[in-house]
C-alpha cells in the first residue's frame, strides 16, 4: 500500500530452523495475521513484507521463508545474502529441533553477515504441556551466543509481533548507529560505503 512509498528502511529478515517448527505460520501470522492448521511443508522460497513504524521510521520488513533446509542448496547463500535479521526458530515441544540450533547458527554465520541480528524463537508455547525445551535453558543458550530470545505461539499469536518488532528495532538500532549499518549490510570494513549501500538498497527497495 502506501507503506511502499513511505518507508525509510527495508530490512531483510530470514526465517530458519528445522522443518515443521512453524516458520511459515509465524510469517503468515506476522504478515497476514493468518494461521493455517494444515499448512504444508514449504516448497521453494518466498517472502512477505510488512511495514512497521519504529521510532518515527517506516521500516519495511522483508521476511523470507523457505523449507527447513536439511541439505546444502544452491539457494542457501542467496537466501542469506543481504539478510540483516534472522529468526532461528525451534519447537519447544521437540527437543531435537532445539538441538539443531547450533548447526543452523553455524550455517547462518557461514553465509550471512556476521552482524546479522539473530533471535532465537521457541515456538508453539500453546503446547506448553508438551514442552521439552525449558525456557531457561534456551534463554541461557541465547544469552551465551548473543542472540535475542523469545518464546512465541503462532497459533495463539503470542509474542509473534514482539519477536519481529524486537528484531526489526534491533536492526534499526544497529543501522541507526553506524556500527549496525556497517554490520547489517555489505562488509564490516566498509563503513561509509555500507551506509551508502543501505541507502541504495533502500532506494532499490523503494523502487520495487
Amino acid at each position, binding site marked *: *500500500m502506501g*507503506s511502499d512509498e513511505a518507508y525509510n528502511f527495508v530490512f531483510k529478515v530470514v526465517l530458519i530452523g528445522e522443518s515443521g517448527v512453524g516458520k511459515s505460520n509465524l510469517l503468515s501470522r506476522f*504478515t*497476514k*495475521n*493468518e494461521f493455517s492448521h494444515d499448512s504444508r511443508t514449504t516448497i*521453494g*522460497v*518466498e*517472502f*512477505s*513484507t*510488512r*511495514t512497521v513504524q519504529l521510532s518515527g521510521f517506516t521500516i519495511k520488513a*522483508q521476511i*523470507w521463508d523457505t523449507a527447513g533446509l536439511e541439505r546444502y*542448496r*544452491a*539457494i542457501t*547463500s*542467496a*537466501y542469506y*545474502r543481504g539478510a540483516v535479521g534472522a529468526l532461528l526458530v525451534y519447537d519447544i515441544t521437540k527437543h531435537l529441533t532445539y538441538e539443531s540450533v547450533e548447526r543452523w547458527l553455524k550455517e547462518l554465520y557461514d553465509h550471512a553477515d556476521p552482524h546479522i541480528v539473530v533471535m532465537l524463537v521457541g515456538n508453539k508455547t500453546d503446547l506448553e504441556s508438551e514442552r521439552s525445551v525449558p525456557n531457561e535453558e534456551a534463554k541461557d543458550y541465547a544469552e551465551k551466543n548473543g542472540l535475542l530470545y523469545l518464546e512465541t505461539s503462532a497459533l495463539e499469536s503470542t509474542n509473534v509481533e514482539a519477536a519481529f518488532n524486537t528484531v526489526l528495532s534491533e536492526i534499526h538500532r544497529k543501522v541507526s548507529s553506524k556500527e549496525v549499518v556497517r554490520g547489517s549490510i555489505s562488509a564490516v570494513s566498509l563503513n561509509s560505503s555500507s551506509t551508502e549501500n543501505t541507502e541504495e538498497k533502500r532506494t532499490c527497495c523503494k523502487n*520495487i
Partner: protein
Amino acid sequence: MSLADQSQQWYPTSVQVTVHQARNLRPKGKNGTNDAYAIIQVAKDKFSTSVSEKCVAPVWKEEASFDLPLFHPGNGDRCTLYVIVMHRAQVGLDKFLGQAVVNLLDLHDNKSGKKTDWFKLVDKSGKEDKVRGEVLLDIQFMRNNMSASMFDLSMQDKPRSRISKLKDKVRGKKKDGFSDSASAIVPSVSKGLTDSEGEADAQSLNQSLEVKKKSKLKTLFAPKSNLQRNLSQSMSTLGTLPEKNSSLSSSRSSGLNVDSPEVKKKFKFLGHKRTGSSDSKLSQGPFSLLGRSKQSNSDLNNLCINGSHVYAEDTEPKSGSTLSLNSSGQGSVEDVRKHTSDVPADSSFSIPVPSYKHESTDRATLEQQPHQEEEGRRQAEAKRIAEAKRLEEEEKSKLEAKRLQEEEERRHREEQERKKRFLEEEAKRKKQKQTEEEKERRKQEEAAEHQKLEEERRRAEEQKRQEEASMSDRLTSLFGMIRKKEEKKEEVVPQQAAEEIPKTAPRSNISHHSNNPFDDIPLSSDPPVSSHESPADDPKSSLNQQKEKKVSAVKPRSHPVKPMSLESQAPISSPAVKEIKVRESPPGKIQVAHSVQSGPYTQLTQEELITLVVRQQADLSRKDSQIVELEEYIDRLLVRVIEEQPSLLQSLNASKPV
C-alpha cells in the same frame, strides 16, 4: 544200515546233513530264550538254517548237502562238519551259542553211512568249556546219485580186487610212458574240455573265461599233450573199443581229475601221483553214467558203475587246473536247495545228489546239444569200458558177471528211469523258475530303467531350476522369468507325484518277488545272507544266479561256493543300491524344496517382491536424481530470481494483509 561193514569199501562223494533240533542251549536272548539258527559248514561251504524264534529247544529240521572232495584223512580240514548254533541278536553281532565239530572221516569210518545222533556243542576253539547244549544231527554219506546202500549193493558182488587189478595194469603201462602223469593229464584235460564242452562254452559267459584258462594250460602243456593223446588212445585200445578211439580220447579227458574211489584208496597222494591210467579210468566215469542210461546194454558192468560214482567225486584241482573243479557234477547250492526244498519227498528216496542236478541244470539251460554229443561219447566210452571189463570178467567168470550185470542193469534201468523222471521234473521246475526269474528280472530291469529315467528327468529339471534361479538372481527380464518358473514348477509337481507312486510300487514288488525264489527254500533262508541282500540287489543277483546256473550246467562246482559268492555279490550289488538310494534322495530334497516353492508361492512372490522393490528403487533413485536435478534447477532459478527480481518471490496474497 545193513551194509555198514562195507563202508570202508567206498568213499562218499557228498554228505547230507540234517539239523533237526538243539536242546539245553545257553539262553542269550530275552526271557531265557534264544532266536537260534544254525550254520552248517563243511570246508568253505556254508548254509544257515532259519531262525527259530524265542525258544529253548529250537527245531529246524533243515538239511544241507556238501560235496566231499578228497575224502581221506590227509584232508581233514575239508572233511570236518561244523554246526554252529547262533543266537540272532536284534542289535549287534549274533551271539555264538556253541558248535558241534564232527570229523566226517571218523564218523564214516566208525559207523554206517547214515547216522542220527546228538552232538555236544563246544566253544569256538573246539573245547568243551561248559554246558552249551546239544544238537541233533543226521549225517548221511552219499555217493553221487546213489545212496550208500545202493552203492554197496552193487559193490557187494564185485570184488574190488578186479578193479584194482585193472588199475594196476593201466597204471603200469602209464608209468612206463609217463612218470609225472598229473601234469600230463592237464593237456588232455584241456583238450577234452574244450572239445566236449565247447558248445556249452559258447552258451555261457563265465565259461568262456575258463576256456581261456584252459587254452592257456593247453599251451603250457602243449608238448606233452600230443604224447598224452597218444597214450590215451592206446589206453582206449585197452578199453577194447578202438573204433571209437578218437572221440574217446577227447571225451575221456573231460572226465578229468575225477578219481575213482579205488584209485584213491590205492594212492593216497593221488593229487600228484595220479597216473595216466587212473586218468583214463576216471574219465570213463562221467560218460559211463549217461551212457548207461541210454545204452543199458549187456556191456554194462560194475566197473562202469563204479566209474559213474567216481565221476563226481574229485573236485579238487589235482591236475593243477582250476577248471577241473567243476566237472565233478556237484550240484550247485541252489540246486541243492531247490532240490531239498522243492522236492522234500525226493529226499526220502534219498538221491539229492548233485550229479543229476548237474544234468538237470544242463537241460534247464538248454544245453542239450552238447549233452547229446557227450552222451554219445559217453555211450561209446561206456561201451568200451564195459567191453574191457567184460573181457576181463570173461576171463574169470563170465556167468557170474552176466548175472551180476543183469542185476545191475535192472537196477540201473530202474534207477535211470527214476532219474529221468526226476530230471524231467527238475527240468520243468527249473524252466519254470527260470521263466519266473526272467520275468522278475525284466520287471526289475524295467523298474530300474524307469527309475533311471526318472532320475535323469529329475536331474534335468533340477538343473533347469538352478539355472533359472541363477538367472532370476540376475534379475534380467524379471517378470517373464518368474512366470516361466511358475509354469514349470506346476508341471513338475503332478509329474513327481505321479512318479512317486509307481516308483514305490515296483519297489515293493521287487522286494517281494526277489525274496520268493529264496522263500521256497528253507535252507537258503540263511538270514545273514538274505539280510545282506537288499531288494534292489535282486535284479543283479538274479542275473548272477542265472549266469551261475548256466555255468553250473557245465561246471556245477561253482555252485557249492554259492553261499559265499552270494555274500560276495552283496557288496558288488550294494553300490547299486546305494546309488539308487542316493538317487532317490535328491528327488526327495527336490520335493521338499519344491513344496516350499510351490506351496503358497511364497518364494515366488518374494522374488517378485524383491524384483519389484529393486525396480522401484531403481526408479526412485532415478526419480530422486531427477528431483535433485529439478531442485537444483529451481534453486538456480530462485537464486537468479532472488538476486535479480526478489519481488517475484513475494507471497501471492501478501498484498492482502498488507
